[in-house]
């Protein structure tokens, strides 16, 4: 159960629409089931009241949609942003992706979102509805007579368990109270991998990445992937490849994708959320974030507008590439 209720958000949206502060609303829309929430633009009070949702499945990061949605509107577009979304929001503004003046941001506090895949693990197939109250999910399935109770904390998405910040770094208006940047264990998994031998790591990634079906969902949802045309879709780039033909190309795609967003990735975790094959793609991005923090000083993309990404910056005293392994070997 989130601290702010669906009704509060709807009233906020309706009043801003009524006051002509905004002309449309970007938010989460009802799907077939309670858990398949999708992003949508609402243009009227009626649409908002009918379809707008705010529950434990509103994980989608709305920032990226502003690129296409903010330019076409008359007046402003209202967007609801969770703390982690605001980092992407700032990063996109840093990269001049939309006009800040066209957007009205309402910041929404977030207690973490549920991972449907984890619920399914607990409750089995045939889920028909999920209600939540006081951080307990009541899951009704086709195969059980009474609803199954699951604490939200048991089924939190990985990125929410390791939430890096409850603080909104950008907004026009804040609902409820703002939180703080948190000490999270988000690099623990990365450290575990680093501690393995090269063979073990190779096995691990071979196993993970070989499942990739190149659906491009990670790329399409990523707020840092905002190219007009991706290099992998561009025949003249020399690396066009729309489907991985072998185990190398799976890696090529993911290494290059991670490299292209390195220093710009805010660690919003959308890539892993949308991956239909459950590949822990965030572990690639977090590796870069961890390296950047260690080599070039703590850096959080999107913390402020206009920050210079670490890979477009340098100091004359930067660590030598050969030193990084030396340092790690001596640390270990």
């Amino acid at each position, binding site marked *: 159960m989130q601290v702010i209720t669906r009704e509060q958000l709807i009233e906020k949206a309706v009043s801003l629409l009524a006051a002509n502060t905004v002309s449309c609303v970007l938010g989460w829309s009802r799907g077939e089931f309670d858990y398949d929430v999708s992003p949508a633009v609402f243009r009227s009070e009626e649409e908002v009241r009918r379809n707008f949702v705010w529950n434990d499945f509103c994980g989608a990061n709305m920032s990226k949609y502003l690129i296409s949605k903010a330019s076409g509107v008359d007046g402003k577009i209202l967007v609801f942003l969770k703390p982690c979304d605001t980092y992407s929001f700032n990063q996109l503004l840093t*990269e*001049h992706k939309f006009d800040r003046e066209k957007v009205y941001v309402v910041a929404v506090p977030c207690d973490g979102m549920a991972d449907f895949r984890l619920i399914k693990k607990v409750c089995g197939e045939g889920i028909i509805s999920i209600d939540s109250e006081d951080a307990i999910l009541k899951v009704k399935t086709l195969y059980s007579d009474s609803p199954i109770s699951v604490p939200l904390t048991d089924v939190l998405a990985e990125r929410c368990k390791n939430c890096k910040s409850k603080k909104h770094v950008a907004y026009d208006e804040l609902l409820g109270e703002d939180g703080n940047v948190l000490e999270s264990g988000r690099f623990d998994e990365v450290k575990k991998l680093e501690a393995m031998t090269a063979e073990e790591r190779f096995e691990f990634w071979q196993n993970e990445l070989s499942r990739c079906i190149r659906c491009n969902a990670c790329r399409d949802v990523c707020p840092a*992937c905002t*190219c*007009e045309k991706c290099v992998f879709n*561009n025949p003249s*780039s*020399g690396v066009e490849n729309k489907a991985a033909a072998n185990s190398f190309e799976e890696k090529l795609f993911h290494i290059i994708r991670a490299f292209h967003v390195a220093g710009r990735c805010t660690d919003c975790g959308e890539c892993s959320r949308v991956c239909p094959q459950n590949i822990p793609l965030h572990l690639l991005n977090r590796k870069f974030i961890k390296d950047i923090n260690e080599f070039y000083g703590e850096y959080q993309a999107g913390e402020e507008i206009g920050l210079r*990404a670490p890979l*477009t910056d340098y100091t004359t005293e930067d660590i030598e590439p050969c030193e990084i392994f030396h340092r790690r070997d001596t640390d270990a």
Partner: protein
Amino acid sequence: MQRIGVFVCWCGSNIAGTVDVKAVAEALKNEPGVVFSTNYQYMCSQAGQDMIKAAIAGHKLGGIVVCSCSPRMHEATFRKTASQAGINPYMVEIANIREQCSWVHKDMATGTEKAIILGKAAVAKVNLNTPLTPGESPVTKRALVIGGGIAGIQTALDIADAGFPVDIVETKPTIGGKMAQLDKTFPTLDCAACILTPKMVEVAQHENIRIFSYSEVSEIKGFVGNFDVTIKRKARYVKEDICTGCGACVEKCPMKKIPNEFNLGMDNRSAVYIPFAQAVPKVATIDPNACNMLKNGRCGICAKVCTAGAIDYTQKDEYIEEKYGAIVAATGFNPISMDKFDEFAYSQSKDVITSLEFERLTNAAGPTAGKLLRPSDGKHPHTIVFVQCVGSRCSACTEKGKEYCSKICCMYTAKHAMLTRDKYPDTEVYVFYIDVRTPGKNFDEFYRRAVEEYGVNYIKGMVGKVTPEGSKLKVQASDLIANKQLHIDADLVVLAAAIEPDKSARPLATMLTASMDTNDFFTEAHPKLRPVESPTAGVFLSGTCQGPKDIPETVSQAGAAASKVIGLLAKDKLTGNPCIAKSDEWMCNGCSSCGKVCAYGAITYEEKEFRLPDRTTKIRRVASVNPAVCQGCGACTVTCPSGAMDLNGFTTTQIMAEVDAICK
């Protein structure tokens, strides 16, 4: 597919000794696109080049590969050959089979095998080459010099003498800079004014030079050869063209208690003032913060006494726009603030002064008319302590000091000590030093003279503490050689303050997209080989804005900067290197990463309207590369995630083709 010709050079036995050139030519015949392949003893000879030309004509070749020595040797030669034969010079690729093959491998089989692969890589690249034409841009034949100190003056004079118009922009009411404030100059002890003021007059009278004094650069747009500059002429409330500099207004002005900047606040000036007698332009300026008329509308005496009618209280800041082909930064330096050096009691005692203040105290035109008197009580000091390296070579605290050596302090301190002993033999002079650095013509001799002939006490050590006590200054210092702590009762303490770039340098660098180091000195295009150029094309560096310098060095750098400017302005058109970055606007998403890594500021962004296939239009921010400024390093190409940025002559597909050919 290109029609490619391959020419394998023997280089006598240099190549042919370890590489089977015939086999190489034969093997490359089968590569895609190759229609002709041959070998010859010396491809770079006239006969070799003629052979290439004949083959280009005879086989209708579109591109050629020469397997020979390093492209650093003969790429230019073969490009010229290609051009003479009527194909684009950039359709030539060199396979380096001498320096990187025959000379480093001993075995014929290995050498031949590698030469073939290198040849294949070159063929693969040529297949993707496109004809390139260097861009041309016109040159505005006028230079802008920012800063009117000795550096700016010398640069302007040298450019103007070569026949090009020059404008000098100076923020102060007069040109002359720091040198005008100096007394004598080391090591020859000429009087600074005697050698500087004739140059200032020369500037004023030069038909090719305009002086914008009391002015600032407020905006710079454009690029090498074509800068558009907006200059703000601050209102001086005096009509510059009418004022005769008679000084009547200065004399009659009732507001006389304004600290005189020129004498570093050691005496006062009036609200309407001429900084010093030899000022250029010699016109009065009204200080709007001090003038009663401008502040309260009461007074107006200066207007009444001005017979020329030059006073104009209604004057407003004026903006003028001008075009320039080259810009020289000569923004100079300032001594750092002594406020943070509590141990030397600078803010507690008037008798602790900086070396620049000492210059004014000993200057005949200074507040004491050249008599060395203590600022506190006007008495003659008998014991003077000079402290060197105050704030220089200080890595402990960046807010306090500077890590670098300020370079000029050792010499001017020796000068001050020597002149003091010369004029006032009854004074005891101590100089505390860490190292005495005197590299320069006649510099060390000068310093030794101060010690040996003038009896200056040079003490290796540092002053730790200065305490004002009565009329004395208690100086506690170390003498490292005697291994003693000294206690001196001094009458005057002179601090050799570190120098730092003028505060105006940083905003100027931003406007110029010129780079600076962490100390706010301008960075050179190359520290050894291009020391007077900024990495930003068309921007040159003169004087201390590039690093600490004494006068002779400043003047020689000023001349060097001028010669670079003259070289640029002498051209009618700038021909660029065509191997530069290009941005594909359809793919660019305007993220602006490329601009951040460009050391030359060659990339700009604009909102552009695109017509989409569905006949709608969309406005997007896209990058564009200024061909006159881009140097072709390719940093932007890797930063660009979408691959919209590419580098002519070294395109992504070309390099990948080479990789593929090598790894096949």
